[in-house]
């Protein structure tokens, strides 16, 4: 049976996802897909694709979860300010080294029409946040403030 990329989880007042991947990169991509599935009615609807590289370089990153938060926050920021979503994501680099988090992703993005939007996410939270390696891959959880 094919493993899901993500699933929406129940939360008393907000919303969140469990996400999965065969490696760290795929799990980060599926976390993004899961977040978009909460926000957008038709995540596969493409208006016009353009290319953009996303680079995250941040000091004081204690763990991979914190890098995940930065990644999803970047996607939220671009959604909020440019009204775009990233549809094809190819993570080239993802690492933690001496308290520094680094990611490089080549992405294609598209604009969104208001009719596609179903729920706004205010922020990525640290509540119940985790990402762990298991036999066969990675899984994690993230809760969003809506």
């Amino acid at each position, binding site marked *: 049976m094919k493993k899901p990329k993500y699933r*929406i*989880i*129940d*939360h*008393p*007042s*907000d*919303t969140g996802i469990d996400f999965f991947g065969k490696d760290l990169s795929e799990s980060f991509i599926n976390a993004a897909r899961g977040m978009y599935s909460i*926000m957008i*009615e038709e995540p596969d609807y493409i208006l016009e694709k353009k290319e953009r590289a996303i680079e995250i370089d941040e000091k*004081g990153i*204690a763990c991979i979860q914190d890098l995940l938060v930065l990644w999803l*926050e970047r996607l939220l*920021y671009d*959604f*909020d*300010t440019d*009204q775009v979503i990233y549809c094809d994501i190819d993570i080239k680099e993802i690492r933690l080294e001496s308290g520094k988090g680094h990611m490089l992703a080549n992405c294609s993005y598209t604009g*969104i029409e*208001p009719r596609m*939007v*179903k*729920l*706004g996410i*205010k*922020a*990525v*939270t*640290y*509540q119940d*946040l985790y990402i762990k390696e298991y036999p066969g891959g990675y899984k994690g959880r993230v*809760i969003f*403030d*809506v």
Partner: protein
Amino acid sequence: MARYNIEKISDYKWQVPKDEKTGMRVPAIIFADTRVLGEALQGNTLDQVVNVSTLPGIIKASLAMPDIHFGYGFPIGGVAGFSEEDGIISPGGVGFDISCGVRLLKTDLAYKDIRKDIEKIVYTLFSEVPTGVGSKGKIRLKEKDMDDLLYNGAGWAISNGFGSVDDAGFIEDSGMMKQAFPENVSAKAKTRGKDQLGTLGSGNHFLEVQRITEIIDAKKAETMGLFKGQVTIMIHSGSRGLGHQVCSDYIKTMLKAVSKYGIDIPDRQLACAPILSDEGKRYYSAMSCAANYAMANRQCLAHWVRDTFEKVLGIPWERLGIGLVYDVSHNTAKIESHVHKGKEIKICVHRKGATRSFAPGHKDIPQKYKGIGQPVIVPGDMGRYSFVLAGTEASMKETFGSTCHGAGRRLSRSKAKKIIDPNKVKKDLLKDKNIIVLSKNSSGLAEEAPQAYKDVKDIVRVVEGAGISEIVAMLEPVGVIKG
């Protein structure tokens, strides 16, 4: 959920004693009756109330209002006061939507006299007021405008033609939190906020045209300018992307600060710093800026409301008597003077999903209300009712002048979407209650349906029973705009 010994203090007040769990510095106190207590204790909510009681410098108790529910670190519906001298400040104790709040506008109009115009008013509001996710406002802020706005709050909006100078006196802090220095707000936060001023947002934000269906306290209602059958307008919105980003930015700052200052926290979302530390002061300042943005936002939204009524009815809004009853914030941390152990001290009161409820005579409420107490606006849901209350002397003693903020959710969002048909919600509200509901996003209506929320009557009954607010009037929706 950890099990706690909960002691009954009165019919409306319960306590988890200080010695119930290692690390508690003060008791946890829950304002509830037996009817709402069970819901208040669901899941891990009480764990969160207890966790807050472990934070340094906390005064009196970790307080839970009757609409308490699970949040991030701090519960929603939580109030906690920390000594300015040696206590902490925490973004988790304020929330992501800094100064999310409610504004109540009154009119001189009786519902029965403009009933035939309500549909046009609601539809025009829907087209005039920017709503929904990613909505851009009609106002584009340049960098200098943004900094002026963050410093001056509602005053910026008023001086740029949005509303009247009289409005400022009927907003908490006169629409401007001091200590709001824009250099403490990141460029990212400013970018997120620059096109969103004057937008309603989405989720549980709303703009509602209402009528007053019941006056419970005639004297207080008269002082507030409220009468039975009156048309009112309620606006629920906050600091939009700017506030969300400020909180996200400073949670990271505080996660580093807890190590620096050796603060033990049972939950990362309780990340904090001493109030008087560099990090604490910068967060307080940035939070003040975001609160000013929120108050300016509601000022602009009120402007579109006045414009709409003027346009539809063909009468200037001033002659329609569209005035501001009060504007309250739900998510803030404020340095206030409170009496503790017989002495007046400065306390940083965190209200996360809780409303200020100052007593009659308090120096920080408008002169007009000094005889009756601060108006408290408590929204319910789109199908039933909302309430106006007034602050009391008891709230100053019991809760640092605080009370509930709303109904609280009964169903999770995913459960609501599974079992509620959004189209039926709209149809039934119109057919059964003559309530027009307009929304940019119909699937969100399931999540915001009346049955997804608790009955706010149960909540306000508790705060009145506990003596921390007094019910003044009940308002029912006739038209609802959702993002």
